[in-house]
């Protein structure tokens, strides 16, 4: 039986085989050498450049762009990777419109920033294609460090520690390393199995071993790790999800957006992935946008994002919102879900319009229902398997300085640690900085 966009319910294969390739191709195709040279020429080599300040990993952007302009892209890549070992992934997934490019003086001058992300990708792709791993390890220190989580923060931390001569063991609950680079990032941002390739390239530094299928809380504890190693870094992200807490939430086809994306990222054949005809996504962040857009790309006919606050307050950037609407996603704002309806399986989601009240957001009497055979919730992830005995700050692990937790010898960074945006690049910066602090403490350096 053939299915199409109009087939009701949750079915796979709504599109023709070719459409999947087109839809999930590189959303921002790489620059070729000529394009990179032209783009690089636009950089003004600013003094104390605002883009560097805006980059959480503080890559020397004017320098690497000048290196591209002078036809030394491998040197440019080294400049990038020395600060951000996942510079390749960051070049693809960073919301540059809010970071480096958002602060580019040519954004001020002409409303068109230097294409920093694309240039970063050009440089790092060039280096990775050559198979070079440009870093070597310092003399062995004899120290070993446990890293929990093989996401961006854990990988950045592990790489820096390995460079400094320590032995690193990464423990991760999933069967594969990469964290959300592998299981979360939208498929069209890093196609071609880039996440796995980047991890393999990163591991070339040596001195890092990975234990997969190992869950903190089930297979070991912070204390057992601390006993087996000289230091512990926690970079396990936010593995739990917030629940709506509404009637009907248990109906079939109401799922966390992250689960849907996880399945999508791991699917070997996108045509085998079922998706609804009418999809509703609740939330306003990057996860909501990615779930909505990818539902459309899989062939859903109507996809609607519903966010409880205004458009300007959406955590997803304007660029991402535009990306959603350009892909035919409808965005409804100032409306919050009040109930999910259906008989066994979901058929409608009911919303109430909201307004700003004295004590924050209030529901109004005005309600409406959206037809839905599938609903994705994307209202935030939470720390799960919460490590015992570590002080929390809100719902995340409390840290001071470069990721020091309340327990000596244990550091944390990335999404699981308080402070900083939940972004790949922030996770990298925090993992790297924690590694430097761990190194100082293990070698009795000035910061130790």
């Amino acid at each position, binding site marked *: 039986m053939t299915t199409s966009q109009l087939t009701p319910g949750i079915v796979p294969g709504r599109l023709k085989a070719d459409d999947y390739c087109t839809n999930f191709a590189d959303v921002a195709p790489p620059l070729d050498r000529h394009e990179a*040279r*032209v783009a690089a*020429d*636009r950089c*003004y*080599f*600013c*003094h*104390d*450049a*605002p883009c560097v300040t805006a980059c959480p990993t503080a890559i020397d952007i004017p320098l690497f762009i000048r290196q591209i302009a002078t036809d030394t892209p491998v040197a440019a890549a080294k400049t990038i990777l020395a600060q951000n070992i996942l510079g390749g992934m960051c070049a693809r997934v960073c919301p540059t419109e809010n970071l480096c490019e958002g602060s580019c*003086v*040519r954004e*001020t*001058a002409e409303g068109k920033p230097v294409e920093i992300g694309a240039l970063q990708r050009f440089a790092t792709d060039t280096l990775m294609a050559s198979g070079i791993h440009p870093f070597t390890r310092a003399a062995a220190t004899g120290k070993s460090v446990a890293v929990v989580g093989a996401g961006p923060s854990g990988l950045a931390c592990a790489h820096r520690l390995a460079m400094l001569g320590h032995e690193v063991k990464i423990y991760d609950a999933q069967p594969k390393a990469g964290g959300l680079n592998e299981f979360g990032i939208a498929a069209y941002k890093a196609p071609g199995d880039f996440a796995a390739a980047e991890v393999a390239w990163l591991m070339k530094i040596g001195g890092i071993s990975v234990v997969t299928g190992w869950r903190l809380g089930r297979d070991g504890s912070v204390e057992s790790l601390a006993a087996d190693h000289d230091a512990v870094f926690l970079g396990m992200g936010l593995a739990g999800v917030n629940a709506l807490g509404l009637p009907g939430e248990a109906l079939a086809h109401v799922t966390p957006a992250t689960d849907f994306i996880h399945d999508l990222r791991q699917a070997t054949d996108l045509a085998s992935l079922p998706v609804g005809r009418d999809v509703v996504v609740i939330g306003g962040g990057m996860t909501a946008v990615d779930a909505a857009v990818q539902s459309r790309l899989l062939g859903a006919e109507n996809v609607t994002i519903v966010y409880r606050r205004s458009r300007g307050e959406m955590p997803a950037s304007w660029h991402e919102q535009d990306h959603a609407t350009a892909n035919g996603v409808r965005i409804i704002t100032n409306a919050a879900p009040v109930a999910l309806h259906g008989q066994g399986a979901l058929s409608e989601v009911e919303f109430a319009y909201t307004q700003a009240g004295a004590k924050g957001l209030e529901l109004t009497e005005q309600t409406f229902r959206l037809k839905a055979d599938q609903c994705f919730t994307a209202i935030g992830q939470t720390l799960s398997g919460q490590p015992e005995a570590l002080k929390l700050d809100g719902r995340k692990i409390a840290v001071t300085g470069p990721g020091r937790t309340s327990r000596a010898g244990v550091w944390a960074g990335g999404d699981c640690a308080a402070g900083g945006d939940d972004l790949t690049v922030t996770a990298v910066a925090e993992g790297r900085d924690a590694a430097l602090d761990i190194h100082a403490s293990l070698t009795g350096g000035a910061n130790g």
Partner: protein
Amino acid sequence: MADLTTNFIGIKSPNPFWLASAPPTDKEYNVRRAFEAGWGGVVWKTLGSEGPPVVNVNGPRYGAIYGADRRLLGLNNIELITDRPLEVNLREIKSVKRDYKDRALIISLMVPCDEDSWKDILHRIEDTEADGIELNFGCPHGMAERGMGSAVGQVPEYIEMVTRWCKQYSRMPVIVKLTPNITDIRRPAEAAHRGGADAVSLINTINSITSVDLDLFAPEPTIDGKGTHGGYCGPAVKPIALNMVAEIARSPVTRGMPISGIGGVTTWRDAAEFMALGAGNVQVCTAAMTYGFKVVQEMISGLSDYMDRKGFTSTDALVGRAVPNVTDWQYLNLNYVTKAVINQDDCIKCGRCYAACEDTSHQAIAMSEDRIFTVKDEECVACNLCLDVCPVEGCITMRELGKGEVDPRTDRPVGDYANWTTHPNNPSSQAAE
């Protein structure tokens, strides 16, 4: 639309834009199309003596220097004079001139430095109906090794001698094309003047090596692993050419001698600058080689708009207008004080002015936490560097301090005109009072 007609040493052309003697003017096919595109005149690619023509290299003959976005700023060549037979060139010149009587057609010549050779070539070109001749004393490579081109142009006595022969054996107006590969451009110009030249044209190309192949370790363009110095031209040489034109225009010996300005003319503005410094017309090569014949249309419309704006009814009103303002350093007013001013509305906060002034000038720009850049008048010496490196045109300007206004850097009020010749620090100053 202003009247751009020029009369240069009796040679009329509908506009002052001539194509310089070079590949664009090497053959009838090109020259006809150049005239159709609107060029006012051409100087035909240099002709040599009767006999087997010279041969060019068969590998690359150009090298280049680029600015941002691969914009060609400087071009270098190792091409020789025309490599086509003399009779073919002469036939074509005659045919073109017959059809374009209103355009200027000049024949460029280069033959060995003896009287017979010059007499012979002048005789052969007699009945082409060309409007004049230009003596190529400029080519700095190849031909110079054979005792021609710049080898002649570097010896004022030879220039004078050959010019005299040409005036003697030809009825045509004689333009002497000068090489810049000398220390003082006034000497060859004076020699041309003594020889009776009707005009000088300058500059020819500058001796140069544009780049080195870092794998072959050879200059570029590279011919079978070797390279040689070539002639440099294009926008990069304009400042050198402008100065040389001005030196001739203001020298007491050569003042008033007609000049055809050449060197980096790329836009109407460049042309107007050459003319203001005394050039009666301009010649163009690299701009045409970079963008094609069509560029002349922008030059024509631009110059014409400018003249209308200025109320100049003929190019004569423009020619030489800036010459009286070219002076020696010692006569510059040391009591003229300006200060850089940064327009905060236009500033894009790149900080280039700050880096430039702080690291290499006078530490006269303050940078605040939130990247506001302001000039410290008490430090600013008005060097202009900040303005020069600012990417936003017009964002940084120079404000002139009024007479009597106190310069916060020196705490002295701005005084009347006074120059170095009378300055107390000058050991040889002639006391003013």
